[in-house]
């Protein structure tokens, strides 16, 4: 036990654990909206689109300072989103195909740049490829502070425009009829999602980041039928996955943090899918007969209501 406490006092560990938890909270909240808008894949596109930004930022500035590289990532993420929306609006290409195109083009370009940089063989390039799968061990306290600031901005944006984001996710047509510019509103929500993605790039990396957006939301939806609670539970699930993944990977030599976080998250998602009351598969199977009997009763209640 005392060994565990000592373990927690460790600087690297504390930094990594806190950073991973922060990433889980923001991606849980923003991912919930993506999932409810049936845009789970959007996160995948956006995070892959970050890679060329990381590389270009390095090539232009010659520095590996995370803040600079993440700024580049945010810009190319956002350009990826803009390209995606443009393709969907201006062409007859369907949304899923457009996502496939944008994802591959941006990621392919990113890999080309990454290879080009590594072939140059200067010492400074070491570490850029960690943005592929993330490497939490490279986190320093300063990075965690940056992540926290970005996280607060993202969560504050959701708190501020909660009503608008909810309306956009549930009934965009009605939003339009009320006079909301749903295009602009969608772009705003996507921009906040970009912030959430940028927070996770160092820890989880561009390839696995999409799971951090989708997983907590899917798990949370199993436990509640209220949006506010869903956001809170998704944040908690994301934080728990980040924390436990980081702790497990740090407790053993040669376990990567990012993938461990995703595996912890997967375990939480599986438990939610199987055992959550009412929506869980296990519950569903046990109660299917009972539910069939209860349905007609609900309809009689309706007849009596007016």
């Amino acid at each position, binding site marked *: 036990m005392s060994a565990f406490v000592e373990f927690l006092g460790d600087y690297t560990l504390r930094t990594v654990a806190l950073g991973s938890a922060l990433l889980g909270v923001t991606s849980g909240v923003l991912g919930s909206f993506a999932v409810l808008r*049936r845009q789970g894949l959007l996160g995948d596109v956006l995070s892959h689109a970050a890679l060329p930004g990381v590389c270009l930022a390095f090539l232009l500035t010659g520095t590996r300072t995370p803040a600079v590289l993440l700024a580049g990532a945010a810009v190319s993420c956002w350009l990826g989103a803009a390209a995606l929306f443009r393709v969907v609006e201006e062409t007859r290409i369907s949304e899923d195909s457009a996502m496939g195109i944008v994802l591959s083009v941006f990621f392919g370009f990113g890999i080309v740049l990454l290879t080009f940089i590594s072939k140059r063989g200067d010492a400074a390039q070491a570490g850029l490829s960690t943005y592929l799968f993330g490497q939490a061990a490279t986190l320093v306290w300063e990075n965690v502070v940056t992540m926290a600031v970005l996280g607060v901005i993202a969560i504050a944006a959701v708190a501020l425009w*909660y009503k*608008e984001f909810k309306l956009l996710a549930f*009934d965009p047509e009605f939003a339009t009829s009320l006079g909301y510019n749903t295009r602009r509103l969608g772009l705003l929500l996507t921009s906040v999602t970009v912030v959430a993605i940028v927070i996770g790039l160092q820890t989880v990396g561009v390839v696995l980041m999409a799971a951090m957006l989708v997983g907590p939301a899917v798990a949370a939806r199993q436990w509640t*039928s209220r949006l506010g609670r869903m956001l809170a539970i998704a944040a908690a699930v994301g934080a728990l996955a980040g924390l436990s993944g980081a702790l497990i990977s740090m407790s053993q030599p040669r376990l990567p943090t990012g993938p461990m976080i995703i595996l912890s998250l997967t375990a939480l998602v599986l438990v939610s899918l199987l055992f959550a009351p009412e929506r869980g598969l296990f519950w569903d199977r046990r109660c299917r007969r009972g539910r069939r009997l209860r349905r007609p009763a*609900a309809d009689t209640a*309706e007849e009596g209501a007016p």
Partner: protein
Amino acid sequence: MSSRDGAAGPPALAIRDLTVAYRDKPVLWDVDLTLPRGMLTAIIGPNGAGKTTLIKAAMDMVPTVAGTVEIFGRPYREQRRLVGYVPQRTSVDWDFPTDALDVVLMGTYGELGWVRRPGRAQVARAMRCLEQVGMTAFARRQISQLSGGQQQRVFLARALAQDAELYFMDEPFAGVDATTERAIVELLKTLRARGKTLVCVHHDLQSAPDYFDWVALLNGRLIAAGPMAQTFTEENLVRTYGGRLPLPAGAGAAPA
């Protein structure tokens, strides 16, 4: 725009030379339609006739190729707050994590504008709207647990919460049970008695003459529009539906 004395002032809806196309395919051609205040109007026509497009174009929700729309004498942009909307029930995902009251509250978002949240006054109004559709007991019910008819009533309550003068409703009777259908008819008549103007996309030719007092027959072009008795004739229906009139006189189910 608070005058409710029927014929006085500009018409509730005045559409002139409206043409709408999706990509290169024209959906509405040169539609002229004027609806007086305080009427219950049905928009009737075959599938793909542009009925939904017509009400969406009237609310500035789809781009138009040509034409103008005026609501109580002024463009929609200036009159938005006077217009309520009930989309097709199937246009949203009813598994969304929210309850009936919360959906009805969305009807108050227009007056709240950006950022401001609904407060006690809005909640009280939303509850009154739920009461008008007989759904008070279901206010806190998750929306996926409501029957189709109950979901439709929630949508109607949301439109009531908009407190509008002109309502567009897209197939409010689609897929609802007989109880809800009666409740909706009562509600429409109550609204008319309060001087509201209602425009409904409607599918059932059988019930149309009983429920509505004005009709617009549409098939890409506007075939005919006017008071039900003069306009809803077999000749006009044949012209609207071509040879494929779905209900020859006397056929089909008797109205409930």
